[in-house]
């Protein structure tokens, strides 16, 4: 389409530009580059870099969004340990993240290994669809559905458990069970992600490595340990980084299913940021809490990258 009208003319102009030498070419490339980048740079400054600096500054102030901001130095950070809600939120977020990473990687790997075996193509298609599908449904919808399913009065899980003679807890209301329930719902929704990328990683391992190992008499366990794990380690590394970053920012299932309760049993850091900032309008303190999320994510990710030298295998 673009090449249609006036392409003759343009050809001439461009040729002259090319003849004009490398300096003119470089100038033209620079102009083109900054034109192409201008929306990105503008949006980056306004919606990422600016707000990041803004959050750093805000975290040093006490401000309720309406009055005059008051400089308080690092008070917003030093009061975090004295805030029982923040303490609960930090502990909960680490607990949630730990189980999220362990279960998503562990079960995702088991599922991927199981589906990777030879099986009819139709069956594999069905299994991939089933395990992955919940990930496409919004957290809002998933949380609402599960809030009904886990309801102590009309939820069927509690009903069947008590039919089986088990003392069924009221999952979302019982302080001991609310967090495990949220962890389980999150696992159900997002297991498809680690499953799919680990499956793709497994499919990328050349078959001849296994055949060679079999000829050498290596058993299934030895093959798994000496071939599968090293060859899969870059994918495992990537999956654990992404799962960690996602889990540490968990918000919706708590916000929708439990409102952080009972008590503070399922309050996550991001939920605490949300309530501090947009319910109590304590903008400075909310910024300080949000920066904690950022710093933890950054530090743990860098740590994971640093440690990857010792276990991630690169060809």
């Amino acid at each position, binding site marked *: 389409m*673009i*090449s249609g009208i006036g392409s003759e003319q343009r*050809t001439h102009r*461009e040729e002259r530009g090319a003849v004009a030498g490398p300096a003119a070419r470089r100038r033209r*490339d620079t102009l*083109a580059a900054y034109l*192409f980048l201008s*929306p*990105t740079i503008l*949006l*980056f400054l306004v919606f990422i870099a*600016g*707000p*990041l600096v803004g959050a750093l500054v*805000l975290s040093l102030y006490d401000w309720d969004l309406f009055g005059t901001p008051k400089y308080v130095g690092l008070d917003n950070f030093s009061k975090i340990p004295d805030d029982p809600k923040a303490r609960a939120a930090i502990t909960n977020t680490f607990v949630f993240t730990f189980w999220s990473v362990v279960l998503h990687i562990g079960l995702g790997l088991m599922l991927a290994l199981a589906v990777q*075996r030879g*099986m009819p193509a139709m*069956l594999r298609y069905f*299994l*991939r*669809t*089933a*395990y992955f*599908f919940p*990930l*496409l*449904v*919004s957290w*809002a*919808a998933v949380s*609402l*559905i599960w809030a*009904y399913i886990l309801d102590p009065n*009309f939820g*069927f899980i509690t*009903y069947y458990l008590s039919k089986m003679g088990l003392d069924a807890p009221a999952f979302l209301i019982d302080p001991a069970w609310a967090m495990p329930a949220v962890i389980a719902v999150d696992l159900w929704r*997002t297991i498809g*992600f680690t499953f799919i*990328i680990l*499956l*793709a990683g497994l499919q990328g391992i050349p078959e001849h490595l296994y055949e060679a190992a*079999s000829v050498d008499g290596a*058993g*299934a366990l030895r093959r798994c340990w000496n071939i599968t794990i090293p060859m899969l380690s870059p994918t495992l590394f990537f999956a654990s980084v*992404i799962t960690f*970053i996602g889990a540490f*920012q968990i918000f*919706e299932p708590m*916000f*929708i299913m439990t409102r952080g309760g009972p008590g503070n049993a399922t309050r996550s850091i*991001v939920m605490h940021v*949300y309530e501090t900032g*947009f319910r109590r309008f304590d*903008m400075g303190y909310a*910024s300080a809490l*949000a920066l904690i*999320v*950022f710093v933890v*994510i*950054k530090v743990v990710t860098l740590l994971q990258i640093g440690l990857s030298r010792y276990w991630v295998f690169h060809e």
Partner: protein
Amino acid sequence: MNSTTPDTAMAETPPPYRPSRLRRLRDGNWALNLLLIALALLMFVPFYWMIVNSLLPREKAFALPPEWFPREITLNNYREVFNLIPFGRLIFNSLKLTTIITVGSVTISTLAAYAFARLSFPGRDLLFIIMLSALMVPQQVTVIPTFILIKNLGLLDTHESIYLPGLINVFGTFLLRQFFLTIPRDLEDAAKLDGAGHLRILANVIVPLAAPAISALAIFTALAAWNEFFWANVFLTSPDKMTLPVGLVMISGRFGSGSPVVILAALSMIVIPLLILFSIAQRRITEGVAMTGLRG
């Protein structure tokens, strides 16, 4: 014989290389296949329960034990969705924002990725490093200052407050840049000799060759925008502006225990088309995940 697990069977004695046995162990373990099928069906149970209950008359829904295979069904709850909830409005808002964000951010990312991958200009590496370092800035950090900015611009409770920040996708930009770098340059050299400018090279050479990566990015941008909750929940307050996820959560709270069946009917109307779409396009979407590492 097939019931022995591969582990124990293979670990006993180092077996001589016998392909037939190896293949039998890998293909034939139907016990494990049945377990996988059972697990897959369990994954669907919440959706199935939702759909079945949404089709039951109100007095029969949520019965215990649940009526898994109902004899009489009704579409009344679906009709009520449109009476009780501004459902059409929510769908329209979500579609509108998803379209703007997907088309806008993919276009903007493509342009930037081309500049980073193909053009040499002063400040490129510095700019690249600055953006790379911002890759992990979570939205909870930016949401508070952005809220203040949006408030001062008088844009609170507008769709602009959702799609303007949604137009930049740093991760998408890097993804496309990496992909563009893998495209051989000779193809463009030919176009350059024909006198094509950068916009034409991008549109006629790079974009068609990078179509798998760009469409994967578009699919996941659309999914993320369609499902987005955190940001819209902060910025949108009036029901006629809300997106589907925020509106449904708000309504389910307001009506409380009054009509969960209607909420289930509304949820079914979102989930069923998604399920049909995904059953058809599963391979494309999951390959997109594997290729890009995007989670939607």
